[in-house]
């Protein structure tokens, strides 16, 4: 960021709700099926068809509103009119000036609060594939439309322009994704488009200046793209202003490969959506009882989940383990950690294995038998298995969804080294590194790693690191002084 310039960032996030059926009809809400199989007169916009609001979608939308500390209000639906082939009715049913959820906030892991302007309900469009070289509608030989996604329930979460750098925007998107997953409202998969982020970016010379002219960036398919696009766009705007030009309010497309944004359309070319109240639907007025019932079913939110883990750690460890805490919460694996700890596994070990290894197959880890997982960590903790062996057993355990870790270890040929064999191997390592041994005995504790490494190499990871350390300590205590 050039000196003195300040970014202003607001994000609009579209989130597909994880309902069984679509927002206004009974068609399955299913990603990846054969094109145009999950369709009916309603989601195809056939003449005479009418929408009926999906109650479950409203509940998930209210869950999002609750998790984001919004007011849940009486709301209405409007029609947003524009022609596009994948828009079945050539209008989108969306909430407009009376959204279901308004005026909330989201707290980032560092405590910074981003205001939430609104989180409203709307329907998704179908999906167009343009055949031809460009992949864009212009110049395509023909286009194919899949209406399976038409009418899938969405919640659009609009932040206030409270973020001041790309890092905050990334943190916001990551945290929001965790909240959406934790609330059960969405699977939060950016790569499948079930969470889509648009960024509004402007720059100003100082935090005291009024907001500059903003551009909206679309096609951000990952949190990483979001950060890159914001950095690029802010730089572009600063260069324009410093070069004596003006930023034009426009929608811009992020080109991931080229690493830059390109103009899609300016404010003057923007559609006139001719919003008006959807006459085929009645106002959505959730009563207090319903709102409370939804709030009661809401589980712990990520911030609460992180706090729960931090409480289990002591102060120093908590600082060191912050990224592990964030990872397990982000992946929905914190319940596994808490349960393992409750069953006697040490907090650092449970956290470390879950964040570093189990996280590699989070889907499986969320489903694994807790008893098996705990048994494995216990074997590692008491030295029955080395860390390396435990990691190998974990892979099989996750793949199988559970099972007896001792049996898996045996099948893999992992046996704890006998004490005699360990003592002998350590002795060999000491003997072959006399200088290091002398320095270790002189108090250079770090050199223990040399010997542990030697032993591990010699035993191909079968030795237990803690046992090796204990043997080194014993030998040092027995060593003649000087």
């Amino acid at each position, binding site marked *: 960021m050039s000196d003195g310039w300040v970014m202003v960032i607001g994000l609009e996030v579209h989130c597909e709700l994880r309902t069984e059926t679509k927002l206004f009809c009974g068609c399955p809400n299913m990603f990846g099926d054969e094109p145009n199989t999950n369709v009916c007169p309603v989601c*195809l916009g*056939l003449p005479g068809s*009418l929408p009926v609001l999906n109650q479950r979608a409203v509940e998930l939308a209210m869950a999002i509103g609750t998790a984001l500390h919004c007011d849940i209000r009486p709301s209405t639906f409007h029609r947003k009119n524009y022609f596009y082939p994948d828009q079945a009715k050539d209008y989108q049913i969306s909430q407009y000036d009376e959204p279901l959820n308004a005026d909330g906030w989201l707290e980032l892991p560092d405590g910074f609060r981003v205001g939430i302007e609104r989180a409203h309900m709307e329907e998704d469009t179908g999906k167009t594939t343009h055949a031809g070289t460009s992949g864009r509608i212009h110049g395509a030989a023909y286009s194919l439309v899949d209406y399976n996604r038409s009418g899938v329930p969405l919640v659009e979460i609009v932040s206030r322009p409270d973020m001041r750098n790309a890092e905050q925007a990334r943190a916001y998107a990551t945290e929001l994704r965790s909240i959406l997953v934790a609330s059960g409202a969405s699977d939060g998969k950016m790569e499948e488009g079930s969470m889509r982020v648009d960024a509004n970016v402007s720059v100003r010379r100082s935090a005291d200046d009024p907001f500059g002219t903003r551009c909206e960036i679309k096609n951000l398919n990952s949190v990483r793209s979001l950060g890159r696009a914001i950095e690029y766009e802010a730089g572009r705007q600063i260069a324009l202003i410093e070069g004596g030009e003006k930023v034009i309010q426009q929608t811009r497309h992020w080109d991931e490969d080229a690493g830059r944004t390109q103009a899609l359309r300016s404010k003057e070319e923007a559609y006139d959506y*001719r919003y008006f109240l959807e006459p085929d639907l009645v106002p959505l007025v959730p009563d207090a009882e319903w709102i409370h019932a939804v709030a009661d079913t809401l589980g712990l939110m990520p911030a609460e989940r992180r706090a729960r883990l931090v409480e289990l750690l002591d102060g120093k460890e908590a600082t060191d383990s912050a990224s592990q805490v964030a990872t397990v919460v982000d992946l929905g694996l914190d319940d596994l950690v808490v349960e393992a700890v409750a069953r006697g596994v040490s907090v650092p070990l449970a956290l470390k294995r879950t964040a570093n290894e189990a996280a590699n197959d989070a889907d499986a880890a969320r489903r694994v038998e807790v008893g098996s997982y705990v048994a494995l960590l216990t074997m590692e903790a008491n030295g029955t298995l080395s860390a390396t062996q435990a990691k190998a057993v974990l892979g099989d355990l996750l793949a199988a969804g559970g099972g007896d870790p001792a049996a898996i270890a045996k099948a893999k040929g992992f046996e704890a080294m006998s004490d005699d064999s360990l003592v002998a191997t350590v002795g060999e390592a000491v003997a072959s590194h006399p200088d290091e041994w002398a320095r270790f005995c002189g108090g250079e504790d770090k050199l223990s790693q040399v010997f542990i490494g030697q032993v591990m190499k010699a035993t191909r990871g079968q030795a237990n690191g803690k046992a090796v350390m204990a043997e080194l300590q014993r030998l040092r205590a027995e060593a003649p002084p000087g």
Partner: protein
Amino acid sequence: MTDPSRRPAVALAAAVRSGERSATEVVEEHLATISQDDGTIHAFNLVTADEARARATAIDRQVARGEDPGPLAGVPVALKDNLCTRGLPTTCSSKILGGWRPPYDATVVTRLHAAGAVMVGKTNMDEFAMGSSTENSAFGPTRNPHDTDRVPGGSSGGSAAAVAAGFAPLALGSDTGGSIRQPAAFCGVVGMKPTYGTVSRYGLVAFASSLDQIGPFANSVADAAQLFDVIGGHDPADSTSLNRPTPRALSVVDDGVDGLTVGVLTEYLDGVDDEVAARTRAAADALAAAGARVEEISVPEVLLGLSAYYLIAPAEASSNLARYDGVRFGLRVDAEDTTTMNTATRSAGFGAEVKRRIMLGTYALSAGYMDAYYNQALRVRTKIIEGFAAAYRTCDVLLGPTTPTTAFAIGEKVDDPMTMYRSDVCTIPTNLAGHPAISVPFGTSTAGLPIGVQLLAPALAESTLFRAAAVVEAAADQGGRT
């Protein structure tokens, strides 16, 4: 119970249910009349003779097995061609729906079938129900059976003419600004527009969603009541369908008007033909003679109805008709890209009046104009509702003419939309209020053309409406000719 000749459809059903007549015989009789006369009248876009015969056979088998096919057993019914019929063309008398066969039945069609009715065809109409003469049909005009040089009214002109010509004792139309009552008056039959929300709109191709309502045509008030009883009632597929018991119609139709207060709506008598005004006053006298208290009442807000209607209805239509884009169904005029294809399809597929209203409505909703036009019209709509509410504090029903004139000549008003629009001046306020109203034939003009009088009632007061209508009808039958 009244003389069966005064309720021909009900009597016909009774004869079929008792085995006295066969449905096949009844249907063949009507098909014969259609094939004899519809070449001149052109009430039908499509005569569904094969389907009707098959259904009649099925009903006769039911009777033979001792089963009751329902209250409309074997009664031929004509359906306006904007009601979806599974597998059968549903055109809205527009080229743009050419080739389209809905994959589903409208809820009213399902209910008709369940009641034993036999659909004999789809009737001509003004394209997308936009018009007052059935001249705005892509398939040519319908002629008034009372004078084939004159229009049958519209937009449900085909349905009104079908009943007047004896093609079917019952028909369904849709009424957005008078499209049932006005043609009923022109053709000398009973036509009724129910309370908004009492009859499901599912499967009715939308013109103006907040105003559209399906309703019955019949040769008598009792028959119309029977048809209303069959098609009314909650439908979960229509979110605007009222979830409450539908007012009873047939069972109360002979209950008389003793003790009711009838308000003669003075605004509706201004500027109408003298003969029409005279017949309206005669109807008031008949109601008084039957025991009603009759008084004059003014609802000045109704004078604003026409201008509000011609903003609200086109605004909704501009959105409802966006889906006819050549992408998914109906006509497609191919072009080099999607936008050009959209434009070419709509230019070729829509007639002049539909285009006029789409442009009007698009304009009324446009940024910068919406408040002055569309929103202002909504405020007027509220005023009209309040005006009626004040009148219904003292009156049970209101009385006025249905139309300012009798049926006009074919071609007389086609080049002057404003004059054409004025023929709905007495019917439009009811749609804006969402109330029920009924047109009852009450004598003829010196030229021998039918005159209709209109009864209006507050929301869900259909029972009162039918009672008053039956009294007016009885007076007409007792020689109330001018």
